[in-house]
């Protein structure tokens, strides 16, 4: 039980990275302004893409491309502002992970009620002795806590990007959802 509580406490304490981000970045006017601009543009662009038709004029398409370019630039500026905190978080994370790995090395922190799939066992049974794959290592539980507790805390505090912004940002990494309409 102690190991389990320690793992959850480790996850919560590593959220101190988010606290640093809040102090260094999220409080600043420049970040708030950029974020609001990105949200507004993402929503506007999404609405425009929903209403555009196959037979839309060249001018309409050019307008949308210009807006996408503007959004890309704002996203890039936002990333630059976040860079400060990313270094701080990276440093904290590396230090904390090194510490927790040495504390929890070889310790079974929990028992899973199922045998994980073979490609997950490398993570769930990491650094543990024996062949009982229901034994759970620290790193697996930590990842689960990150995916659940941290995500929900971010969302609750309003620190998560909006769906429109995520969708448009995803479009810059890969083909955007409406790309086919312009080809």
């Amino acid at each position, binding site marked *: 039980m102690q190991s389990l509580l320690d793992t959850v406490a480790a996850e919560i304490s590593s959220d101190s990275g988010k606290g640093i981000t809040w102090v260094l970045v999220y409080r600043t006017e420049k970040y708030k302004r950029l974020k609001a601009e990105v949200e507004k543009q993402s929503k506007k662009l999404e609405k425009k893409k929903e209403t555009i038709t196959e037979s839309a004029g060249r001018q309409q398409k050019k307008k949308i491309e210009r807006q996408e370019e503007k959004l890309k630039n704002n996203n890039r500026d936002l990333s630059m502002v976040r860079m400060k905190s990313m270094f701080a978080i990276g440093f904290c994370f590396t230090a904390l992970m090194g510490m927790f790995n040495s504390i929890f090395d070889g310790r079974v922190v*929990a028992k*899973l*009620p199922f045998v994980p799939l073979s490609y997950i066992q490398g993570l769930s049974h990491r650094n543990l002795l024996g062949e009982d794959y229901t034994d759970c290592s620290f790193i697996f539980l930590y990842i689960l806590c990150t*995916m659940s507790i941290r995500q929900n805390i971010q969302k609750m505090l309003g620190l998560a990007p909006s769906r429109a912004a995520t969708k448009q940002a995803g479009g810059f990494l890969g083909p955007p959802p409406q790309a086919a309409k312009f080809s």
Partner: protein
Amino acid sequence: MTSISKRKEESHLVNGGVKQSTWSKAFSSNAVWEEKDEFLDVIYWLRQIIAIILGVIWGVAPLKGFLGIAIFCIINAGVLYVYFSSFQQIDEEEYGGTWELTKEGFMTSFALFLVGLVMSIKMYKLLKYNKN
């Protein structure tokens, strides 16, 4: 700012927070959702609540293995489907289809379910051990 847009602001916090009036709409049948994101946030948080509850119950009940996980997935998806299609009677196409609504917050709720499950199993064993 008009009173309507001010009310919109009051009822829905930016990026995921959900206020009192949104929750009262969430539990009223056939509510009107002016903002898509507002309804999606309600779906998200309902999913998290279901995950926590099922995680705790599954830890106590003898539901182990992938059968337990499969039943969780079915209940999670099924309950929310009934909620948005029958209780709220929303137009799924407006939100990108049933699949978009089903996957809203699903992975996070699954991770939360597993965390809840592991904690619940441990607590249950501890209480049982102390009782004996």
